[in-house]
């Protein structure tokens, strides 16, 4: 091993400084504060009236959401695994398109479609009164977790010779159910663990959905109570509650990640590759695409149509016909500060994506050997709940940066670093070191080799990383709702505040605008993933 060269050393120093500044120092500060508050304060908080209900609510809703999501995602992935590629693509599109709708917009759109006074209520007198409440929270969290869970389970099924293994079991005398229980399920265990952990963490840390559907029904979760205590409460004891809730969320996340990671050790590998014809006599599978499309329609299309119609209507309760359509709601939204919020969100998204891109690119160039541990650390940082990061950053930088856009940016970089790091590192792993070496042998200096070989090969991954961070930052709500101040409200926060003021049509208009922004920024991403064969 040669000693690191001087530019390399400076690169590392820079990376470590940023990591310490945006993640290490704030989290350390939060831990110090929690410990400093002392066990006395903690027990006082937990002894207070209703202190446990947000924690209990978070645990049971997240557990239920995880179970339902895994069952549904596995059912879809397994029943559609034998389909031809055209129908599988249809299923893939129907299952993953909802990713483009921000979770709290999805919740708003369900209210617009199925809630009391919603589209179906006006049209045929059908509404779901339980939508505002715990059941609604659970169902919307399931809807939002489905795409990722499906992608993970589906990838696991496609990556091994699952079909031949099940066929061998059938020939050995197992009926379809027995073959599923003894072969498919054990083989899916790692994927189910991974998607289960992600679903649980995402649900426990979700803020948008419980804020829209839980809070009006006085159903608090850890994240919504934390928001109320930090942003809305003037009670000085509230800050102790914030610390306890943040500690709870952080520790629970660590435990879930740790348990999933430990049970994932010794993954079962399979060397066999699938062979033989794809066509199976899965009669159930033939109806699966229509079921998935129906699911897509009910959970995503109808609500979104209802939201758009709400944003266009002259007044709540009018028939959704073109004669009652107007664009006034959009004008009103801009009048109430949406313009500057849009500028804030756009700036934050562009800057956060660019910083993450620089850090990710730098890291890949510096990391001569992969697995230096920075990747794992970054992944862990993404698992840290947004609420916890926000509280930590507020503690660390609040005295100087409270209510500024900059403090939100710091938290965004901490949160989204992992998101951007993964595609870049994955792509860099696929580039063999010989390519770089061949450039050096051909007479290129280190920097020239990076510029002419590494960067061009990484370009798709770099673009993907930038776009994905941009998309997530554009509709981010958990962090910004805790850190915004006068003049630094993001678009998502503005939607939430408008809703609390009780103007459904203007809220809908703004939510539609936000979704359009996310969809537009996703278009080059989808086009690119097609072109680079990411999206099979």
């Amino acid at each position: 091993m040669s000693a690191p060269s001087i530019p390399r050393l400076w690169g590392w120093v820079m990376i470590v400084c940023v990591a310490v500044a945006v993640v290490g120092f704030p989290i350390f500060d939060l831990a110090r504060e929690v410990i400093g508050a002392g066990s006395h304060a903690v027990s006082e908080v937990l002894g207070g009236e209703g202190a446990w209900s947000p924690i209990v609510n978070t645990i049971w809703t997240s557990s239920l959401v995880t179970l339902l999501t895994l069952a549904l995602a596995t059912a879809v992935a397994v029943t559609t695994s034998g389909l031809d590629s055209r129908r599988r693509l249809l299923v893939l599109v129907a299952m993953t398109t909802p990713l483009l709708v921000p979770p709290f917009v999805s919740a708003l759109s369900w209210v617009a479609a199925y809630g009391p006074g919603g589209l179906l209520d006006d049209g045929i007198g059908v509404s779901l009164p339980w939508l505002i409440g715990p059941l609604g929270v659970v169902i919307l969290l399931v809807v939002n977790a489905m795409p990722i869970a499906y992608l993970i389970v589906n990838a696991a099924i496609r990556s091994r010779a699952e079909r031949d293994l099940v066929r061998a079991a059938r020939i050995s005398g197992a009926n379809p159910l027995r073959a599923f229980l003894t072969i498919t399920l054990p083989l899916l265990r790692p994927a189910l663990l991974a998607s289960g952990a992600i679903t649980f963490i995402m649900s426990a840390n979700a803020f948008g959905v419980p804020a829209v559907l839980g809070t009006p029904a006085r159903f608090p979760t850890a994240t919504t109570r934390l928001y109320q205590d930090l942003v809305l409460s003037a009670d000085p004891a509230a800050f102790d509650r914030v610390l306890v809730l943040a500690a709870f969320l952080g520790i629970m996340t660590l435990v879930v990640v740790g348990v999933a990671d430990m049970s994932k050790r010794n993954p079962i590998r399979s060397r066999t590759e699938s062979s033989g014809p794809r066509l199976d006599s899965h009669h159930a599978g033939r109806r699966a695409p229509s079921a998935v499309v129906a699911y897509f329609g009910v959970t995503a299309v109808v609500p979104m149509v209802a939201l758009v119609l709400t944003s266009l209507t002259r007044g709540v309760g009018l028939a959704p016909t073109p004669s009652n359509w107007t664009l006034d709601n959009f004008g009103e939204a801009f009048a109430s500060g949406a313009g500057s919020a849009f500028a804030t969100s756009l700036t934050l998204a562009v800057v956060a994506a660019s910083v993450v891109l620089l850090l990710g690119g730098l890291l890949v160039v510096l990391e001569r050997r992969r697995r230096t541990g920075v990747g794992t650390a970054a992944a862990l940082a993404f698992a840290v709940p947004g609420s916890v990061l926000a509280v930590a950053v507020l503690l660390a930088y609040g005295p100087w940066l409270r209510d500024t856009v900059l403090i939100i940016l710091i938290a965004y970089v901490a949160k989204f670093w992992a998101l951007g790091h993964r595609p870049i590192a994955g792509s860099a792993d696929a580039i063999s070191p010989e390519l770089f070496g061949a450039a050096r042998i051909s007479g290129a200096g280190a920097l020239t080799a990076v510029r002419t070989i590494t960067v061009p090969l990484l370009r798709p991954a770099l673009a993907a990383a930038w776009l994905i961070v941009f998309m997530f930052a554009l509709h981010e709500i958990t962090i910004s709702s805790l850190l915004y101040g006068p003049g630094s409200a993001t678009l998502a926060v503005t939607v939430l505040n408008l809703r609390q003021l009780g103007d459904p049509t203007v809220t809908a208009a703004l939510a539609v605008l936000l979704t359009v922004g996310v969809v537009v920024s996703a278009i080059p991403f989808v086009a690119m993933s097609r072109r680079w064969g990411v999206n099979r």
Partner: protein
Amino acid sequence: MRIEPSLRCRGLTVRFGDVLVLDQLDLEVARAETVALLGPSGSGKTTLLYAIAGLLDPDEGEIEIDGKPVARGLKAVPPEHRSVGMVFQNYALWPHMSAAQTVAYPMRRRGVSEAEAAAMADRLLTMLGVGELAERLPDQLSGGQQQRVGMARALAAEPALYLFDEPTAHLDATLRIALQQELMAQRDRVGASALYTTHDAAEALAVADRVGVLRSGKITQIGRPAEIYGQPMDRWTARLTGTASLLRGRVVEANGDRALVSVLGASLSVPRTDSVIGEAVDLLIRPGWAVLDGPLEGVVERLRYEGPHTDYLVTTAAGALQIRQSGLPRFDVGEAAGFGILQAWALPIES
């Protein structure tokens, strides 16, 4: 009472979209018989086995196993009730199960007690020479060992019919021959019937009682190994079933079951086909059917010494001919060599 064949397929047709994979295929496998299906990749070998096993539904046709219809219209018998055992090309071992668990699996599904199944699995694995590997996962086994575990699993099912999907395709030559012999020994001991697919002619000829040639979803020729090798129906089949040299000749006489063909100025008696006197034919000559030293003249164009024998490629006025003879090379490249033809098979001329 008439003994039903172990397998009977009638008019079997399978389409994948617009592609006709099996085309009105008929096939019978008698009790305790092994039939090998020889065909290039894409000829429908795997599809046929999958249809017989019940892993895909044929579009048309009937399948009977041991006289019982298993695929006829909508009343298809599911794979677990068809009494077939299958050895997969890619082994298809379950990555989360040890060899012993894998072999016990079919017996457990039949309701055999756990202890009994374990004992039986151990016996089968030992019989196949992998008894000491019983606790290993597929991951920890070599290709040949995996294949033996796959075979033990098929044997454990005690089926009426074994299906072998290119079971030796991924193995090296030595291991392949050892496994082929073991397969035949197993079959003789258990007395079951087997359908065996391969694209390796030597393998098909060695293991089977009958060899069928599968081309574009149809069985174009079926018969004893010596028939398929010695009397292929056309040039394509001749090349599929082994090394084939063709010399152009002309039929000069035909009486009884023999015909006289003149080639390179000599006359050769061959089994009679539907050849017409005066018509040109291609004479198929396998490497062992011609010898050096003889009345015919040629020039040695290529030599290949392989240890036990030497292959000579001899060019003549009627075409090129490969001769295999034991011992060291006796000519140099470019030298004239005399040779004689011991045996030949007349094929119609194809353009």
